[in-house]
């Protein structure tokens, strides 16, 4: 057989049916559902009298609208509560496992899938959520789907899909201290643009990617969609296998060894061809901060807010002008001079225990700037929260002046009470700085957890590479 990429191997293994000129029917191994995009597909199934074909392959949780405090009190948000009730009823009626708000496994769907070992290499994984690309960190094919497709998967355990093109994104060399996976992916999106990956699946490779933990790889794959790609992947290796061993749903004992032997065959073959290749040098990377209203509007922390006049294309120039007006920023402003109102550490991009450890190391023994109205840490899952508390991270954050909450999407999407008020400015470890994303009129700057933590202490952005407390780690 010809040399194949990781994507092609997974694709080939999941084709149920193929005929020329039509999309293939591919089998779906894992389906995650949450309260926000599932009520309509379940309703449609009922209306059509259809069943869920393989309920044991679908897993549900509550994340988008969950309150991050006072969960023992009745919910005041009636629309949110109605969605939770609908999800609980749908899971019960159709026989689907649900990690509800009281479950110790509850959390953001893209955090709990991996940490429970439900996400495994070689699998096809979908969810009605664009950040399903996260799961590609395990050498799985994970991608977000719309409501109609959610219904399709529930009813058939398959999807009709056209094969994507492949783009290899290689980050060569060793990642400098203070530069995180978040900075790597923001730099990539800055380079290719937010539509640059449309029609592609990314495969991240190179020494700097290999050197990342699973958490770092998840951060990169998570934001593939912000570069336009529905999926991003990293070939599984010993880091992947070590992460998965012993997880609740992962294979055990001899089965695990058999699985690892198969997973080892997934890596892209030597000589396999990609449709496009992008290369970055890790040594040229720096901590990144977004200045505009999409993740591609990004620069290094040592940089300045650009002048829209530098954009030669009229449409781009207009977009930059409109972004600066929304963000209330003047061209030429140093990124380090941008003062903040709030700091949010959380989201499916950066809320895993490693992210919290790194941020805690930065803030330990210091105090959040007085000028800040709020500094918020929202763990990605209740398991992350429990682990962080076991390590005393909650204490470090609280003593520094951060709020410590229960798990959920929180201020990344502001569907609960954690909202960035209009006109205020936040440093956020989330994935989207779109207009109104964190709250109508709110102004978002995307950064890494250590950049957010340092900004919380100073009240404005700072170059974390100059923070002596980093010790070459993050």
């Amino acid at each position, binding site marked *: 057989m010809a040399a194949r990429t990781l994507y092609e191997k997974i694709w080939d293994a999941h084709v*149920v049916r193929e005929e020329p000129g039509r999309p293939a029917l591919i*089998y779906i191994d894992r389906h995650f559902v949450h309260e926000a*995009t599932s009520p309509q597909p379940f309703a449609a199934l009922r209306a059509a009298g259809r069943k869920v074909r393989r309920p044991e392959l679908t897993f549900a949780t509550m994340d988008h609208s969950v309150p991050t405090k006072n969960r023992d009190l009745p919910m005041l948000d009636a629309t949110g509560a109605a969605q939770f009730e609908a999800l609980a009823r749908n899971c019960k009626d159709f026989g689907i496992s649900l990690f509800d708000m009281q479950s110790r496994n509850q959390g953001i769907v893209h955090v709990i899938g991996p940490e429970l070992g*439900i996400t495994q290499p070689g699998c096809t994984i979908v969810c009605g959520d664009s950040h399903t690309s996260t799961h590609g960190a395990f050498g799985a094919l994970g991608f977000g789907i719309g*409501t*109609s497709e959610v219904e399709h998967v529930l009813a058939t*355990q398959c999807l009709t899909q056209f094969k994507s093109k492949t783009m290899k994104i290689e980050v060569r060399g060793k990642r400098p201290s203070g530069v995180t996976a978040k900075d790597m992916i923001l730099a990539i999106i800055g380079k290719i643009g*937010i539509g640059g990956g449309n029609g592609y699946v990314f495969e991240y490779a190179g020494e700097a990617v290999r050197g990342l933990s699973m958490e770092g790889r998840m951060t990169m794959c998570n934001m593939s*969609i912000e570069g336009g790609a529905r999926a991003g992947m990293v070939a599984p290796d010993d880091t992947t296998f070590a992460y998965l061993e012993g997880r609740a749903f992962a294979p055990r004992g001899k089965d695990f060894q058999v699985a690892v032997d198969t997973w080892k065959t997934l890596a892209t073959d030597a000589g396999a061809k990609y449709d496009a290749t992008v290369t970055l040098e890790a040594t040229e990377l720096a901590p990144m901060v977004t200045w505009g209203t999409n993740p591609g509007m990004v620069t290094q922390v040592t940089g300045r807010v650009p002048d829209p006049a530098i954009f030669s294309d009229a449409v781009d120039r207009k977009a930059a002008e409109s972004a600066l007006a929304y963000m209330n920023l003047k061209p030429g402003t140093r990124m380090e001079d941008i003062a903040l109102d709030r700091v949010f550490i959380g989201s499916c991009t950066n809320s895993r225990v490693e992210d919290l450890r790194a941020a805690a190391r930065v803030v330990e023994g210091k105090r959040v700037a007085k000028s800040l109205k709020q500094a918020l840490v929202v763990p990605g899952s209740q398991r992350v929260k429990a682990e962080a508390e076991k390590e005393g991270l909650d204490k470090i954050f609280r003593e520094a002046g951060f709020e410590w909450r229960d798990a959920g999407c929180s201020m990344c999407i502001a569907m609960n009470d954690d909202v960035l008020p209009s006109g205020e400015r936040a440093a956020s470890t989330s994935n989207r700085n*779109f207009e109104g994303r964190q709250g109508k009129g709110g102004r978002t700057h995307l950064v890494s957890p250590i950049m957010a933590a340092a900004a919380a202490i100073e009240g404005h952005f700072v170059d974390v590479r100059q923070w002596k407390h980093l010790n070459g780690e993050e």
Partner: protein
Amino acid sequence: MQPFTKHTGLAAPMDRVNVDTDQIVPKQFVKLLTREGFGRFLFYDWRYLAGEKPNLEFVLNAPRYRGASVLLARANFGCGSSREHAPWAILDYGFRAIIAPSYADIFYNNCIKNGILPVTLGNEQVDELFKRTEESEGYRLTVDLEQQTVTDDRGLRYEFQIEPFRRQTLLEGLDEIGLTLAHEAEIAAYEAKNLRVPAMHGAVDVKYHRN
């Protein structure tokens, strides 16, 4: 799904690149349980001031674009969140077709599944359509999926490409789930053959596990 064959209607210009689905339907409406009535929420934060008062500076609120059914847009339209609420809102507002240089992948798929035709044309062609729409009030376009053309009544005629299967899906208003269910025997055969190799399909064993 409502089939799409040919549609003639008033064009409206959304002259902004990278319009994301958070702008098309803001998050607070993703909390609803149904898929009906989303037209009211289309471009909500741009379209309304406080108290749902129309923002007269927003293009779709201009009287000349009232009743528009062909949406002109810029590159990478529909990027961001996978929410299908975005095409529901576009359709419920009254748009049957979108014309743009490019779309985000998930949004594009979601349009097809809702009977909206996302036409892809070159940058210069889209520029020309924006120009004509803005210059002449009441400018109408005809989008013909059978012929794969966009035309106006002044002799403009652009051809567009679309994947044949997607074209057929729209023309016939196909029920994709029904189509897949017709292949039940193949799905069952695939499962019988492959799911015994758990490593490629991620064995799950719920018996190990308690909530």
